[in-house]
């Protein structure tokens, strides 16, 4: 009971305070960084590679972010670089869809995007955490303008089909009540001496006072209807001016409903390191990043090349591909080295001459399935009628979430929101539908949250990632076992070939993973090539 006061070893905080006192804040920062707290991903700055042997050629396969970055840095280091890309565009999964675009998926369905001019949806990557410093570094270097992406919106909706009569509730109301009731319970437990065994008298006082401030409790430790709670969850009659300005407090939800709703998970959601604010998006669409990278290396890219085989011997790498711009003519390219960023579901089916362990690794990582819906409405009713500016509403229906645009606030005319973002079973289900069925289900489910959804709807598009011929899925999905058995072999240089991409990182399914993997791969490859020279 008293051991809370007699800790045998210094806590991290105590240690830091000591360093801080002794060495000033710079030392404190350094110490924190080395303890892994102030840093984000392990981006160490761009690699300063130089001295690549003149005439040494590197073939890069795939013009996603990993491939384009490899090409950019390797050329700077002195190598002769060529990129082969299957699609008729660069960017890979970094993509935005706009009016006039055509999306063809496996199975043959073709969607023509009908969005009004200027509107777009990011059907793949859409947000960038502030600590993805590698990606942010290159955005800055390549002149990609960023703006805030609103991740957490207290005025968005949380919806459970089974609780609150199936009606959505405001994040704000729910969060206030969940926090308030939780604080009240803990506060009561302490005051009724139910935690005496666990918490010292001194700490009890601190906890009770913390609960009161954190949970919005009254002086006697209760969470109840009144000014304090309403100043968090909002008033039934809002605060006004003048004669009739007095507000009327709002009713609380029943504690039991709050607890059983499971909606607290959406509060926890935004607490994850990857989901915390500040979050960014490129101005004008996520594909501005791909375009920024492309500006640097477009002269190195050959589009419409479907790679089918990667062979190597002691002296060369030979890549065989179909030139899709010329009737699929079979061609070959030779190089000294190869950086391959082709997504694993594709690569695992190609004729690739690498060691057994690397081959096994390539085949050991399945890709998650994901579907996104981009829906355009005649007007921003979520802003105009609902005061929702950006952020995400969550639902337990298959569509999972609705996310409102973080840009163009208060503008008139049509606007696009994310009408569904599915993973797991719901993603398989939606990917198996026709595009028209996906939109129809998206609208039907969205009605549970926005009653005017159908009335305001204009047009929509869906992207089912498992049906993209060039990834056959959304992102790598490592099992614990596969990571243990295969990760190293996947990343190791195999004679003249090295793999890179989101899948060869611990930051899977983030663009940062593609960046960090690419930098690591080319840094090692450069060393390797110099050793060989």
């Amino acid at each position: 009971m008293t051991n809370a006061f007699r800790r045998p070893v210094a806590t991290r905080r105590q240690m830091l305070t000591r360093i801080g006192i002794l060495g000033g804040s710079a030392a404190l920062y350094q110490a924190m960084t080395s303890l892994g707290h102030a840093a984000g991903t392990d981006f160490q700055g761009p690699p300063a590679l130089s001295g690549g042997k003149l005439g040494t050629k590197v073939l890069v396969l795939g013009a996603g972010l990993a491939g384009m970055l490899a090409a950019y840095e390797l050329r700077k280091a002195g190598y002769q670089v060529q990129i082969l890309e299957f699609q008729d565009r660069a960017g890979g999964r970094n993509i935005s869809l706009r009016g006039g675009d055509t999306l063809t998926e496996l199975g043959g369905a073709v969607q023509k995007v009908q969005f009004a001019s200027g509107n777009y949806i990011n059907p793949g990557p859409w947000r960038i955490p502030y600590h993805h410093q590698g990606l942010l570094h290159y955005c800055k270097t390549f002149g990609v303008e960023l703006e805030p992406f609103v991740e957490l919106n207290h005025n968005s909706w949380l919806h459970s089909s089974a609780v609150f009569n199936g009606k959505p509730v405001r994040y704000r109301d729910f969060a206030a009540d969940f926090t308030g009731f939780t604080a009240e319970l803990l506060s009561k437990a302490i005051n009724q001496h139910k935690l005496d065994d666990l918490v010292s008298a001194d700490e009890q006082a601190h906890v009770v006072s913390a609960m009161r401030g954190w949970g919005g409790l009254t002086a006697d430790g209760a969470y109840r209807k009144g000014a304090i709670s309403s100043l968090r969850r909002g008033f039934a009659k809002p605060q006004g001016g003048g004669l009739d300005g007095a507000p009327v407090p709002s009713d609380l939800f029943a504690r039991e409903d709050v607890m059983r709703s499971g909606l607290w998970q959406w509060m926890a959601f935004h607490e994850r390191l990857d989901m915390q604010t500040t979050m960014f998006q490129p101005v004008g669409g996520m594909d501005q990043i791909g375009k920024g990278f492309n500006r640097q290396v477009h002269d190195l890219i050959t589009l419409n090349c479907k790679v089918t085989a990667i062979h190597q011997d002691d002296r060369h790498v030979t890549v065989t591909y179909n030139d899709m711009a010329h009737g699929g003519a079979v061609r070959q390219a030779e190089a000294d080295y190869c950086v391959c960023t082709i997504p694993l579901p594709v690569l695992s089916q190609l004729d690739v001459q690498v060691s057994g362990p690397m081959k096994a690794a390539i085949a050991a990582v399945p890709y998650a399935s994901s579907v996104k819906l981009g829906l355009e409405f005649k007007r921003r009713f979520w802003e105009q009628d609902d005061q929702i500016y950006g952020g995400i509403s969550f639902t337990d229906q298959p569509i999972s979430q609705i996310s409102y645009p973080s840009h163009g606030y208060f503008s008139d005319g049509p606007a696009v929101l994310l009408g569904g973002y599915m993973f797991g079973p719901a993603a398989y289900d939606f990917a198996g539908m026709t595009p028209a069925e996906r939109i129809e289900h998206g609208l039907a489910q969205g009605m549970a949250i926005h009653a005017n959804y159908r009335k305001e709807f204009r047009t929509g598009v869906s992207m089912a990632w498992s049906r993209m011929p060039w990834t056959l899925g959304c992102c790598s999905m490592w099992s614990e076992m596969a990571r243990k058995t295969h990760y190293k072999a996947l990343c190791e240089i195999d004679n003249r070939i090295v793999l890179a991409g989101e899948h060869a990182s611990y930051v899977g399914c983030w663009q940062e993973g593609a960046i960090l993997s690419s930098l690591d791969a080319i840094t090692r490859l450069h060393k390797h090539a110099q050793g060989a020279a």
Partner: protein
Amino acid sequence: MRSVFLLLAGLAAGAFLAPQARADSASAVVGKMQPLKTGADVYKHVCQSCHMPDAKGAEGAGARFPALAGNAKLASADYPVYVVLNGFGGMPWFSGMLSDQQVADVVNYIRTHFGNHYTDMVKPSDVAAQHPTIKSEED
């Protein structure tokens, strides 16, 4: 019906939340879906997203979703059971998301439809015998 619905969602969460927890959507947002009481249901709501409604598969960038229609590799039921439970290349594992009954149902379904006419049936107990434990990264 409701409880089956939720149960499936719960199972799915166990299997799919965590593996994607690092992902963007990590979204930890795993939508739920209907009960899938027959092999045809499982096929329609899970498999056809890749293998296509007619089970003829599709041709991508030098890689494909193989056809299950007229596929001689389905001759031994153990093979599709193994693939569905463990995954295969880009195909995810379904152990943990589909029940033994559902795996048996869908394997029986693909082996008796799409031009396949195998007569031996897989039982849930056969599936149970093969069950791998595939752990997501973050548990």
